[in-house]
């Protein structure tokens, strides 16, 4: 296990982030730990509330919902040390924040594994927001950070408006997966990268799996410097690399977490070396990836130059 999955939900004010969070909490099949920006907007049926303590609500279904004060890192640290651990953490970003900045906390705080950056957009308002004199750049930056867009309120948008919203998203973030929904009714599966072994080469991959995964079992210890060099040069189609490896010279086990150019490589308990690469459909071919990652082996021959 590379860490507790953490999904950032961003998107502009009014897009429906809190509705998504409410939907998830109400229909939970896993124990969510949710950090919300506006605690007052969380609307839980009284029957679902097991305990309400200041800025924290514990639900009868095992979920917990916490108000986020100024320090998101502290909130994540508190969640990580709870007596009854959560299975997946959702961070609801504020309506004006850059979700990429929020996602960085998942790399800085130990114990988390960054799942897709989800950005909720208001199908009816998006085109207008992208032309607003004050908020256009903020909305654009949020969409540019998205790894999945939840296009919400499609029931309120006429076909032309909906088409314009889709077109705008495709322009700002070409190729990004867009899931259309109403009333924030999101499928839980959208908040995680596809699980083990599901790849585009897998015939049964669900249709929304527009992420591609590739697995690598490092056959021997890696060279730290070669690994760094390889990570620095990864193409933009690589969204995540996570897993365990051993580093030469003493084969010390390490945990690697890579997300869109940032990464941490930290000592870990000994586990079987195994890495997963998650990317967009433009991910290099498995043969190319095998060659790329193979060059990080301490035993491999350096390139002639």
């Amino acid at each position, binding site marked *: 296990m590379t860490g507790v999955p953490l999904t950032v939900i961003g998107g*502009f004010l009014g897009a429906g982030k809190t509705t998504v969070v409410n939907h998830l909490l109400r229909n939970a099949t896993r124990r969510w730990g949710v950090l919300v920006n506006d605690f007052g907007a969380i609307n839980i049926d009284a029957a679902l509330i097991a305990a309400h303590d200041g800025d924290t609500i514990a639900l009868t279904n095992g979920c917990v919902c916490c108000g986020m004060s100024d320090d*998101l890192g502290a909130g994540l640290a508190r969640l990580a040390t709870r007596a009854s651990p959560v299975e997946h953490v959702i961070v609801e970003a504020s309506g*004006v*924040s850059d979700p990429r900045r929020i996602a*960085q906390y998942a790399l800085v705080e130990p114990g988390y594994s960054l799942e897709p950056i989800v950005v909720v957009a208001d199908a009816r308002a998006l085109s207008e927001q992208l032309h607003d004199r004050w*908020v256009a750049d903020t909305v654009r930056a949020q969409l540019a950070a998205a790894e999945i867009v939840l296009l919400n309120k499609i029931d309120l948008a006429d076909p032309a408006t909906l088409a314009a919203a889709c077109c705008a998203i495709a322009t700002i973030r070409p190729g990004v997966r867009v899931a259309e929904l109403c009333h924030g009714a999101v499928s839980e599966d959208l908040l995680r990268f596809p699980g083990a072994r599901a790849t585009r080469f897998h015939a049964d991959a669900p249709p929304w799996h527009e992420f591609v995964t590739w697995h690598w079992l490092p056959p021997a210890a890696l060279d730290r410097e070669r690994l*760094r060099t390889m990570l*620095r040069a990864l193409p933009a189609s690589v969204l995540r690399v996570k897993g365990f490896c051993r580093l030469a010279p003493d084969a010390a086990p390490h945990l690697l977490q890579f997300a869109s150019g940032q*990464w941490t490589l*930290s000592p870990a308990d000994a586990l079987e070396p195994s890495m997963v690469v998650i990317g967009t459909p433009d991910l290099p071919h498995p043969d190319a990836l095998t060659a790329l990652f193979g060059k990080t082996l301490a035993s491999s021959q350096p390139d002639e130059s």
Partner: protein
Amino acid sequence: MSAETRVFVARRIVTLNPSLPHATHVAVREGRILGVGGPDMLDAFGPAALEQRFANDVIVPGFVEGHGHAVTGLMWRNPYVGYFPRTAPDGTQHPGFRSIADVVAYLRQIEAAMPDADRPLIAWGFDPIYFAGPRMTRADLDAVSTRRMVVVAHVSGHILNVNGAVLERAGFSADSNLDGLARDASGALTGELQGPAVMGRANRVTGDAGLLRAIDVPALRDYAATARRVGVTTSTDLANVLSDADVAVLRAATEADDFPLRLVPAMRAREYSVADGIARLTALRRLSTDRLYFGIAKLVVDGSIQGLTARLRWPGYHNGAPNGLWYVAPAELGGIVEAYHRAGLQLHIHTNGDEASELATEMIGRAISAYPRADHRHTLQHCQMADEAIFRRMQTFGMCVNLFSNHIYYWGEQHRTVTMGPSRALRLDACGTALKVGVKLAIHSDTPVTPVDPLFTMWCAVNRITAEGRVLGEAERITPAQALQAVTLGAAYTLHLDHRIGSIDVGKFADFAVLDRDPLEVEPMALRDISVRATVLGGCVFDNT
């Protein structure tokens, strides 16, 4: 009429009272001003005691710091390592540091004297922008200690330098390739941390809450001592959660007879839902005393210019950095402004960039047009890049401004060369335009961001000279009389207190600053060299000597 009457005599009293601009005697009874004039004050109101200790000095209205933070009183619990000299609450002058080597040598001394080996050493106020040569690195701070965690916080609030012990405890290594962790050419971490994620983690491992530390009574007393020493008799605490505990501390401190300051805390509105915040502030207003005033809500719209997080209009940052951040969505700001406005409360809104000032002005204008309310005095705080058109609209809507004149000195060169460029920097904190257009004006320090010292703030607004000695925006200079008004009656107006403080007039509190020279007569360049001999608060003298 048995209450005692005391008459203060001075070489000159600058009253800011239009009916009698200058006087020599002021009669005080029950903490308030009974009469202002000449020697006739001595027997105009029956028997009176004559106070001659200021006979050779100049009395002006007590200064009003319209944008300060009481957290200033906590800063000195940690060592100061800033570039500019600064005065501690006990009056000790701390010299500025002119090189990294000097900072390190000082921290080594402090470290050697620390008894508890585990306590982190956290220094504040570091300001290397005028240092030549390389930036501070972890090697510099490892030279202070390799065992003890050492943190040097930059005065900008946006950067920390830490030693290896902090990096290790935070889990940051050469293999932490995270935004905000600076590296040298070899890829090693330099110990410079930027951004809330990595800075927040470092603060958590050292146990330092930075500027969010809770203020206690001793800290408030230290802040009051710092402000009093420079002639301030009323100060804001412009971002206070105003929890029950905060209010208890404010009340306990200001109820003490020897507390030398009137305090005006502003509630951090975003700590509450809109409805809760309005209810809270409305309830708190009833707790106001002569020394403690509630009723202002604080909002923050954008970041800072030097941190490149202020919202700017075209053409944006001179160095090409992307536009800054909204701290509140524009539409949401409109809703909050309207709600507080309708509830009869007053808003003090932080805007640094011109786009933020334009937005806040627009939203206040909409609220006022929909729900007319005379005398609201909503105020833009900092408002550093407003141009004439924004000021004109502010005037139309009856808004006030509190400009950050100290910025001209402390960051003027940065704004000229990096953030604003040579043209727009001329209108940085444009006091001249604000007054010409008729906007009610205050000027401020934002202590602890820059030191509280209203005479220095006046000097900045009057001379507009940067730390490198360059005049920035000569046409925006104001006169010493206008500057004096801005740090007294002008600031009092933005707090809805101009009927009680800010000038020396019958019925007002006997709040004075006692100076060795007349700020309206000295050379403008000498304004900052005027000595504050004492303050008088409600007739009680607090001597500086």
